[in-house]
């Protein structure tokens, strides 16, 4: 799988958020994109996943462009800012509801993924009783559960305990070995240090190789 971004431009009103982004992401790698708050990391992931539409440019998954037809790219798992589920359903039921849309996986697969994100004990609790970290884990679980070929994660380790973070990182490394393409955005370099094969930086609407801390 090759995810190619060509001349991507996105403006909100008169403000330029992404300005002529060109990059080629290749499966079997973990990419980390660093950027300060408001640098456009989430917008980039939303465009890649087809939630937002770019003003110019193309996003091609193995040369297929989904974005022009209000479609969604197949086999993409995404965990993006403000994870939200139905308050009155349990964590498990929320995942089951989402899984029922594509009908690719069953209850066993859901249980397996809940174990990977360390949420098995809380799976029968109602979502409204979840802590911030548990909500984040559930968001990651829904991104992983349907065995996607591309995984997009926005600030994935927010509020998650160290043990669970390590477990999830190991899982991501295993997925990479299975030729899955993983893109992680964050504003904290330490979160993804040692995990990513390629470290990029999003600044002034452009993407470039990370050149180290400027502080």
């Amino acid at each position, binding site marked *: 799988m090759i995810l190619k971004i060509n001349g991507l431009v996105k403006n909100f009103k008169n403000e330029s958020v992404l300005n002529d982004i060109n990059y080629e992401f290749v499966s079997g790698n973990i990419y980390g994109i660093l950027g300060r708050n408001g640098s456009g990391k989430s917008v980039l992931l939303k465009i890649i996943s087809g939630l*937002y539409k770019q003003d110019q440019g193309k996003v091609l998954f193995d040369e297929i462009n989904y974005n022009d037809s209000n479609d*969604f790219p197949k086999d993409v798992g995404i965990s993006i800012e403000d994870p939200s589920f139905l308050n009155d359903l349990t964590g498990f039921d929320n995942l089951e509801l989402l899984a029922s*849309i594509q009908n690719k996986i069953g209850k066993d697969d859901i249980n397996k993924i809940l174990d990977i994100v360390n949420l098995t004990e809380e799976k029968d609790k109602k979502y409204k009783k979840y802590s911030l970290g548990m909500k984040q884990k559930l968001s990651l679980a829904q991104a992983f559960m349907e065995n996607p070929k591309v995984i997009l994660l926005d600030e994935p380790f927010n509020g998650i305990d160290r043990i669970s973070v390590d477990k999830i990182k190991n899982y991501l490394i295993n997925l990479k070995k299975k030729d899955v393409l993983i893109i992680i955005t964050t504003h904290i370099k330490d979160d993804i240090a040692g995990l990513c094969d390629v470290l990029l930086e999003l600044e002034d609407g452009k993407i470039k190789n990370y050149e180290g801390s400027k502080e």
Partner: protein
Amino acid sequence: MKKFLKNNYLVIIIFIICIFLGYFYLFGEFKSTYLNSDDINNAFEMMCQSDEMKTSKECQDYFINGPYEDAERDVLFIFYYLLDSSPLRILSFTMSFLISLVSLKKISTIFNNGQTKLYLTREKYSVFIKKTLLNSLKYIFLFPIIFIILYLGCLWLGKGNFDVSYLIDSSASMIPYQYASLGPWFIVLFTYSLIINVIIYILLGLISLRIVNNYYVSIIISYILFLVMAISGEIFGELIFYECFNIDIHNYLNFIGIFEFSDIPNYYLYTGIRILIIFILTGIIYLLYRNKEKLINYTEKKWEILK
């Protein structure tokens, strides 16, 4: 079962209240006022006991002819009274509110917690939006089913009698002869027009939900839109069509008196106007919901006003 009750408790409450009020009226007040003769016979018995009244013409007639027998009324007469005199008559101007209450609940939950994004990474936008909007349209059958069940009560009380001569003779009937003469088929016409009106209410609700992303406020806004439509109907009917062009279609544009069929001799025009409104509202909904990105932005922010 528990899940079904939890998801549909509003529908169940409205259903039970309407059926209870309808049947309570039919077998209580209506039956004793219009069908049973016990009250009138008791009154004569009392009155004619006194020496003064015994010789009166009324009492003499009563003694000769005997007690009054129970009256018989046709099914449509009873149905007409149910619509016009029972507590259910308030539905003509509260149905829009109640329909928004039930039809916006689920869709509002989906829009209000940012879950839309999770759906849209799993299905096409067109499929998602069609599925979500159609979900609210399933409530078009709530009130038609309620009225069909109440109609069965009328059928029971009227003993299946569709001789509508008494109904036509009674003053200010809401059901003119051309419709009353349909007999048992009148309920089909009534149900059809009810469904058309309910579709309008649901579409108004969907428009209001895209104006403000809050369940309770969107219900209020949808009711305000309904009132605006009703007032506009009056203004167009009275001031523009009648005053300017001398065309009297005032009753066809009456969106509050949905149970009144008097003064609307042309049923096709009546439904045609409403179907035209449905097309216009559908077009507005298409414009409001066609942009995937705007909808996602909108659903991420509570209390967001249209943008």
